[in-house]
């Protein structure tokens, strides 16, 4: 028995550095963690904090430049650092397996799924092809993929994202490893798919007794999956302990700041604004002496915190709870968050944008690549959307990928023209006017903030130049001088220092780039801003700052904000009204309170239950949607959601399969597209 209780993985004082021609760049310093049999340990931190490097360090796959410069990694008592290449190969895949962030990229595109799976036991256990195939069939069944035989014979690109991730998981489980390293396994997936995958991983972990090292930036997800958690900041572990201890009795200022920067249920943009962590993440060669978090810490005390290296200290009376903070004892951890000042909610004004029965159908050739011929198919991207948006109102549009929210944004912008229906901007029809024929004022009125700030700025133009260019296009300012002043004013508006005008986009961090994107969008005094997932590519601590900036500008300029997102926590925090879309239909529309409280539409219910919430007090019903979102090219008859709806049996006479439900008003301003009776809907 004693042997079984011994830790599976012991990382002690691990330090990893990357070597360039000139410098040694420390990526991980003095990192320790222990994973016991059957235990799931979460590794949390922002991008660049070294969490993935730890995972690759365990696998001893650091590339040509990376090297372990100190400490040991022991796996089942054997030192991984001293193993030969052959010994390592025997462990990789068989004893330690890894699940990756992007399933499509981690599967070989030119190899059938079956062969990729069978390879694992064939290498490690030397079993025959037939045996390996039988094993693959069994594991593919275990990860709940339908029709395993067909799946094994397909290529990765023929599967959906969720199915690909299940294959990656199946591949990791082929030789029944004792340790599973999951590197952001669900970041690239939709929330409902994420919920299903997380569920699966937990079940399989239990079934096979596998220990897990779960790397994520999503605190909610870690709470749902892990027993223990380790918070990393700038290459160091700053706090480790059981999930309960760290979530409820956090003992490090960074952990606290992290929790305060994510929206939890109940937070509200007016009553309790999010508190962003001030400053920026230090680059590896800019780390301060002493506490790395010092410069951004509210509790920082000069002379004490920046004196020298700080060791991990044990918290008395806890189960292996450590923190890297000298002032643990002096800080009152229970002190409530100092209110940063509540803001007066701005009442929505007149209607500026009205959408009536808007439809967008695409005709696609059945065979697009080789010139088609044959039948064309119709993709119904948007089906009779009707809603209105008022001045200084935030309307959130939520839904999974493929629900038609981006098509709607494109039609608003004029990148696509509508098939049917109307878009009225100040009672002017604009749905048939493509962007190149819109007048300057209309273009300046409706602007967009894009999802990925890294791709949307021209890499060879200075920040100031890009904003001035937008001003020129919108015809603002008579002279270059005036435009330059206006540009500097915009930089002030988005809280960037004025000297950034002369910088190149590559010199900016993600959050700063997004601020430039916002400045550009507001350059022409936009009245409607379509924000397409504006913060999803940013780190948690930066998200809060960018969101608050958007809110602040909105309050000042009375902008109408259409906030497209799949992140329901942030939607709940900042929006006034919410529109839920599924397969091109609006299934629910109402104020935030109405949508986030029962009665729900069945899809909203599933969506809400899928969102991981980083709060130990929240208990939620667990609904896992089966299968994938149906293709818009071949939507199910009747209600679009009927194929995955758990309430379908409640509706008599198979109505769901025959008719698209009509829009019903449950309460003033709260509409739902569902056949369920009002009684059935409100019985939650």
């Amino acid at each position, binding site marked *: 028995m004693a042997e079984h209780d011994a830790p599976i993985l012991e990382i002690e004082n691990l330090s990893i550095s990357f070597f360039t021609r000139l410098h040694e760049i420390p990526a991980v310093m003095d990192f320790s963690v222990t994973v016991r049999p059957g235990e799931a340990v979460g590794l949390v931190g922002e991008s660049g904090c070294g969490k993935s490097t730890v995972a690759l360090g365990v*696998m001893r*796959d650091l590339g*040509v430049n990376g090297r372990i410069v100190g400490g040991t990694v022991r796996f089942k008592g054997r030192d991984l650092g001293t193993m030969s290449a052959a010994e390592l*190969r*025997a*462990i*990789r*895949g*068989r004893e330690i*397996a*890894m699940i*990756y962030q*992007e399933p499509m*990229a*981690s*599967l*070989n*595109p*030119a*190899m059938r799924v079956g062969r990729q799976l069978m*390879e*694992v036991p064939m*290498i*490690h256990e030397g079993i025959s092809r037939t045996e390996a195939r039988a094993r693959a069939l069994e594991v593919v069944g275990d990860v709940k993929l339908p029709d395993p035989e067909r799946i094994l014979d397909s*290529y990765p*690109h023929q599967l959906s994202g969720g199915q690909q991730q299940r294959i*990656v998981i199946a*591949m990791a489980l082929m030789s029944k490893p004792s340790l599973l390293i999951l590197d952001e396994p669900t970041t690239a997936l939709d929330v409902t798919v994420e919920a299903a995958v997380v569920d699966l991983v937990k079940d399989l972990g239990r079934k096979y007794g596998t220990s897990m090292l779960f790397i994520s930036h999503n605190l909610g997800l870690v709470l749902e999956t892990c027993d223990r958690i380790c918070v990393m900041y700038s290459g160091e572990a700053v706090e480790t302990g059981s999930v309960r201890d760290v979530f409820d009795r956090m003992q490090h200022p960074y952990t606290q700041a992290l929790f305060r920067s994510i929206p939890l249920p109940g937070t509200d943009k007016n009553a309790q604004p999010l508190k962003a962590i001030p400053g920026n993440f230090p680059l590896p060669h800019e780390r301060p002496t002493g506490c790395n978090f010092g410069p951004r810490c509210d509790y920082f005390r000069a002379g004490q915190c920046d004196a020298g290296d700080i060791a991990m200290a044990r918290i008395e009376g806890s189960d292996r709870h450590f923190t890297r903070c000298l002032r643990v004892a002096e800080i009152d951890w229970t002190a409530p968050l100092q209110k940063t000042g509540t803001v007066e909610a701005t009442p929505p004004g007149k209607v500026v944008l009205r959408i009536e029965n808007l439809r967008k159908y695409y005709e696609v050739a059945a065979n697009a*690549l*080789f*010139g088609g011929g044959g039948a064309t198919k119709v993709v119904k991207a948007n089906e009779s959307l009707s809603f209105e948006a008022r001045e200084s109102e935030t309307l959130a549009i939520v839904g999974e990928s493929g629900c038609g929210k981006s098509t709607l944004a494109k039609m608003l912008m004029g990148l696509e023209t509508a098939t049917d229906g109307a878009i009225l901007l100040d009672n002017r029809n604009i749905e048939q006017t493509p962007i190149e024929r819109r007048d300057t004022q209309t273009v300046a009125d409706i602007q967009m903030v894009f999802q990925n700030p890294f791709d949307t700025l021209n890499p060879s133009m200075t920040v100031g130049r890009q904003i001035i260019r937008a001003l020129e296009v919108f015809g603002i300012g008579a002279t270059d001088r005036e435009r330059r002043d206006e540009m500097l004013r915009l930089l002030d508006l988005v809280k960037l220092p004025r000297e950034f005008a002369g910088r190149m986009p590559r010199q900016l961090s993600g959050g700063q780039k997004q601020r430039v994107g916002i400045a550009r969008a507001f350059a022409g005094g936009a009245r409607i801003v379509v924000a397409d997932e504006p913060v999803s590519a940013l780190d948690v601590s930066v998200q809060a700052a960018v969101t608050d900036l958007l809110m602040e500008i909105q309050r000042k300029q009375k902008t109408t904000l259409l906030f497209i997102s799949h992140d329901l926590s942030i939607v709940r925090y900042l929006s006034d009204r919410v529109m839920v879309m599924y397969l091109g239909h609006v299934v629910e529309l109402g104020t935030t309170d109405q949508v986030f409280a029962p009665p729900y539409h069945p899809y909203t219910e599933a969506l809400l239950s899928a969102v991981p919430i980083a709060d130990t007090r929240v208990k939620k019903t667990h609904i896992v949607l089966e299968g994938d979102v149906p293709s818009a090219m071949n939507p199910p008859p009747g209600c679009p959601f009927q194929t995955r709806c758990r309430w379908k049996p409640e509706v008599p006479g198979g109505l769901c399969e025959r008719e698209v439900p009509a829009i019903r008003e449950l309460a003033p301003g709260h509409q739902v597209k569902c056949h369920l009776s009002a009684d059935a809907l409100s019985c939650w």
Partner: protein
Amino acid sequence: MVTFILRRVGVMVLTAICLTFIVFFLTNLYPNLEKLAKTQGNFRMTDAEVESYLGRNGYLDPMLVKYGRWIGVWPGWVIEEEGATRGRCIEPGQPPEEAPRFCGILQGDWGFSTVFRKDVGVITGEKLALTGWLMLWVMVLMVPSALMLGVLAGMREGSRTDRTLSTFAITTTATPEYVSGVLFIAVFASSAVGLQWFKGTATGAVDKPTFENFFLPVLTIALYGMGYIARMTRASMAEVMTAQYIRTARLKGVSFPNIVLKHALRNALIAPFTVIMLQFPWLLNGVVIVETLFNYKGFGWTLVQAASNNDIELLLAVSVVSVVVVLVTQLISDIGYVYLNPRISVS
């Protein structure tokens, strides 16, 4: 798949017609015809004589009519003069009644070469066979060694092997055939100081190719083309080796040779495959130098002869062959691409 190939063949025929018409138009411009008349008749012809010669031989008819005749969809010209009937389709000594109305490429009549005094069809066939043989051996030597070079260099980017092999590849591509060819002859074949392993001329290879008389021309062409393919393969391989699925394979415990052979190779070959296919048309015309240098009377040598002697029919035939070779290799390249890359399907 069948409809895809049929459609591609249709497109190919259309392209071939357009391209050959352009060549036909250019070779049948008046200055060319004038030169032809003077070489066929005599160099001191007056303008009027040239005119009458060309008229008598159907050269002054409209361009489309001439093109139609050449293709074989327009009846050949027939002229009665001095009691005898002459015609494009009438062989000397053949009674006019027995001669066919059409005689063009479609009927298998490629015309008559004014330089070699032989049927163009026969010449092209012979020369193409000779050059085909040369190309086959070039490919046999060049493709596998280039791929091997590229894969070995690309699998560990920046390593010593990579740098050595890359330098070699760049050197071979940077050395033109007329330099390397001369060098090889000097080193391996010259009777004064050379090693005398091989023969400096490939004339004998026309009748009886042996390793001794054939290896040098093959090596000269292969080396030049090899560097290019090797560079492409190396770049493609190096990129594939940094892909995430290679990391997946590595962390599955797959050994390095198997990673290269089973996981990387197929993905890495997609890009160079097109380049290899493009080498065929290049080889067909690129052999000119080597064939001249080693005195191997193949297709390239014929091309030079035809061009310098204004042999219109032969030139046309040569260009038709080139066009067809280009198009066929592109078709093969597209089909092979589909096979290598499962993400593209044609069904």
